[in-house]
């Protein structure tokens, strides 16, 4: 009996410890690696001391749960950053404030593509006409192609928020019974 109680209490203690360490590891994950530790830069390179570590810059910006852990769109809109529109300063840029709804999403919520945040960063020709036709519905976008790095996947999953964030694009609920799915 004593042995059973002892084993049970050790198991419970271990589970508590596991929960604590998992939380601690999440906290570690939420921070940015220094260049010396990121597994990408050569720690023997003496020039690393002159380069900025990601956390020094990104830690001051609106946070996000994925990618660089920065909400880049909000950082720009709220004035945390003022990225230039041209190499020589400011150039006139074309911004569009229309939204495209993609209906062919099966049982998932429909996709709403907002032009506004995209045209704050990108020129029309970055997407049109090579990646997307300008005519709505004329481009055969599929999730499998996106996961292979085509269409939205040219940027999302590489530099803009990753493809783990389903609901940010699939944001328009289906009506009727399908909504509960």
């Amino acid at each position, binding site marked *: 009996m004593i*042995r059973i109680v*002892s*084993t049970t209490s*050790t*198991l419970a203690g271990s*589970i508590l*410890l*596991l929960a604590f*360490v*998992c939380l*601690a*590891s999440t906290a570690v*994950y939420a921070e*940015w*690696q220094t260049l010396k*530790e*990121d*597994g*990408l*830069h*050569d720690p023997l*390179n*003496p*020039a*690393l001391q*002159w380069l*900025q570590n*990601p956390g020094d*810059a*990104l830690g001051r910006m609106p946070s996000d749960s*994925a*990618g*660089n852990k*920065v909400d*880049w769109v909000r950082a720009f809109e709220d004035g945390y*950053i003022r*990225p*230039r*529109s*041209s*190499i020589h300063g400011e150039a006139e*840029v074309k911004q569009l404030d229309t939204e495209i709804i993609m209906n062919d999403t099966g049982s998932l919520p429909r996709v709403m593509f907002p032009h506004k945040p995209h045209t704050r*960063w*990108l*020129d029309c*020709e*970055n997407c049109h006409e090579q990646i997307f036709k300008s005519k709505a519905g004329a481009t055969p976008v599929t999730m499998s192609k*996106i*996961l*292979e*790095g*085509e269409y939205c*996947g*040219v*940027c999302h*999953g*590489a*530099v803009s928020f*990753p*493809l783990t964030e389903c609901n940010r694009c699939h944001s328009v609920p289906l009506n009727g019974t399908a909504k509960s799915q």
Partner: protein
Amino acid sequence: MPVCKIRHIRLLAAVLAVPILVIVSLQTQAEYADVVLNRNSEKEGVRPVVYPHWFHRIRFQCRVCHTELGFEMRVGANKVTMEGIIDGKFCGACHDGETAWTVENCDLCHSGLPGMETGITGGHKTLGPGNW
């Protein structure tokens, strides 16, 4: 009793192994969207280049490099050479000693671990651009 203790230690070790492995694997987490360029670097005797998207997008909108400077939005699709950079193409449009450091500061760009392949790195990988 000693047998019991050994069992407890084994159990504890097994339970702790998973989060410890998670932490260790996360210790080598490159920043999302960092790009490694190593088409020519190591062949020419220098470290691979690490290009941090995060640093540059604080200062420039995507359109500057991907329209004005002509960088294709596909890792490996751009034939970046030192000759081109010195002539003011690609990175050389800014890394000219006025907007950013000059090409004489080799180690600031050629800062990567030897042996890495050209590609885009960071978490949340898909089958996409990172693996082409």
